[in-house]
């Protein structure tokens, strides 16, 4: 097998400089990524659909524009992947399902409209847990996506293809979605950066829903800076999404590159329990690193988070059932067993409990805002352990994963998952940095400062 092209080593920030300076061409860059996909993707299944010819055409257009002096911004000519939940006009969009196995949308999702306008090159549509309704991306219809650090382990989910593509270098940046943790869990399992921004910050138009009041669409990238660059492109009000926020969009790179002097950071006590020793050690080391950068790190308490996963799951399951009700009646056998079981179990959720869970979200956010009165950001582990093995039926996804991530779908706060190191077995470990609603700038500032101090992590040997 040929060594991967050195062009794959550059993150989006570095690519932007080199592409703009015409040191590299979008065409050679795209070809390098397509070669990489061909070399490794049979083993990791990060893609459902590779749009090679279209990607080459987009790359040629980008090359022509850049040569002619028209520069669209940092994503001009950059090859990316989109989770196959995001509509792409004229391109198969399956939702990771059999039911939509032949569905071709007649319009783009807003996230793709904006990235396309920014000059990004679409390599293809990324694998996911069926209908985004799970955390393993062990997809029975399109192939089990595998963790590039250990092919016998899950990449996390539901945006497993998006996370795997980053560390396997089959895309320079990706888009995922997050309803109970589906950006942050694959980012944690695969050792890359996943940003679930504030709910309503990024349009959900043209993205298949799982649970409307909990769904977020956001970046999975190599670095915090790349996530900020991507959020700059995709954030902002969209008249096609009535829930999208009219809150002004700042420059999310505005506070990157500095230290954390004078910043107070709160470690959430209720989520700093029931974690494996490797996760605990890496999390403690990360807190020390933040202290060395000038932050004051101390414990905070948010008691309502103890039932945060329950609140999230009651809302999620009830809303997902509403979306799937007709299909489950007409085509139950076309669902994977795990997703079908979740939909069936949802039939027992009462309207009263759904409303109570929705109201409880306010209390959870109130407590979090209280903690954030005196702290710029909060910290918690991303999950209790490193990635489990594919098919491990004894692994409790709720207790080990959703317990940490789900509460912040309920509160809608911005959260980034960022790697804290590798375990003794060479598996990624991560933590979450959680901010006030619409304060992605602070979250990314802390993530960026920590990442630069931590230094690069070894890539998987694939």
């Amino acid at each position, binding site marked *: 097998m040929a060594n991967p092209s050195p062009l794959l080593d550059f993150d989006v920030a570095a690519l932007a400089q080199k592409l703009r300076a015409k040191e590299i061409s979008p065409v050679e860059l795209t070809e390098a990524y397509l070669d990489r996909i061909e070399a490794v993707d049979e083993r990791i299944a990060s893609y459902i659909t590779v749009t090679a010819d279209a990607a080459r055409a987009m790359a040629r257009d980008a090359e022509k524009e850049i040569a002619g002096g028209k520069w669209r911004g940092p994503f001009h000519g950059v090859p990316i992947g989109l989770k196959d939940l995001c509509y792409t006009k004229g391109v198969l969009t399956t939702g990771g399902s059999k039911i939509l196995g032949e569905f071709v949308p007649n319009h783009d999702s807003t996230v793709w409209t904006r990235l396309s306008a920014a000059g990004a090159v679409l390599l293809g549509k990324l694998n996911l847990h069926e209908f985004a309704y799970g955390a393993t991306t062990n997809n029975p219809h399109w192939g089990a996506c595998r963790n590039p650090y250990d092919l016998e382990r899950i990449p996390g989910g539901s945006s497993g293809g998006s996370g795997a593509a980053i560390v396997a270098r089959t895309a320079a940046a990706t888009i995922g979605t997050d309803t109970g943790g589906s950006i942050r869990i694959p980012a944690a399992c695969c050792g890359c950066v996943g940003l679930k921004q504030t709910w309503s910050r990024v349009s959900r138009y043209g993205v298949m829903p799982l649970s409307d*009041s909990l769904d977020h669409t956001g970046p999975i990238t190599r670095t915090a800076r790349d996530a900020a660059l991507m959020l700059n492109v995709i954030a902002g009000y969209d*008249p*096609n999404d*009535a*829930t999208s926020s009219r809150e002004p969009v700042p420059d999310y790179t505005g506070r990157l590159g500095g230290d954390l002097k004078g910043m107070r950071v709160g470690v959430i006590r209720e989520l700093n329990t029931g974690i494996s020793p490797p996760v605990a050690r890496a999390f403690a080391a990360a807190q020390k690193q933040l202290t060395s950068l000038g932050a004051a790190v101390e414990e905070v308490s948010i008691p309502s988070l103890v*039932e945060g996963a*329950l*609140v999230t*799951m*009651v809302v999620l399951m009830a809303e997902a059932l509403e979306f799937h*009700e007709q299909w*489950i*009646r007409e085509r*139950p056998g076309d669902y994977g067993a795990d997703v*079908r*079981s979740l939909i*069936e*179990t949802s*039939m*027992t*959720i*009462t309207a009263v*409990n759904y*409303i*109570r*869970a*929705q*109201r*409880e*979200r*306010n*209390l959870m956010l109130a407590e979090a805002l209280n903690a954030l009165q005196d702290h710029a950001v909060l910290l918690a582990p991303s999950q209790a352990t490193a990635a489990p093995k594919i098919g491990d039926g004894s692994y409790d996804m709720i207790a080990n994963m959703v317990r940490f991530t789900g509460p912040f779908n309920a509160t809608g706060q911005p959260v980034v998952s960022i790697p804290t190191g590798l375990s003794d077995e060479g598996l990624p470990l991560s933590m979450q940095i959680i901010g006030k609603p619409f304060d992605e700038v602070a979250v990314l500032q802390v993530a960026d400062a920590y990442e630069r101090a931590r230094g690069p992590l070894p890539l998987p040997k694939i």
Partner: protein
Amino acid sequence: MAKLTANTAKAMARELYGYELSDESAAEVAAAAGAMITRSRKLGNLDLSGVQPPFGYPTLIAEAERIRKRG
């Protein structure tokens, strides 16, 4: 733990959703739902008096306008 039998789960799915659960699925649903119902009782013990659900009228207006313009 809340007792939900497979037969009850089957009846609920059939009567409320027109959906036939297999015997195996009904047993799984009964077990999973029983645990969930037990934990959901904690929601009933919360003091939620005066707490609004996060449903905003501005969103209703914006969505109605979007539908109106779409024709």
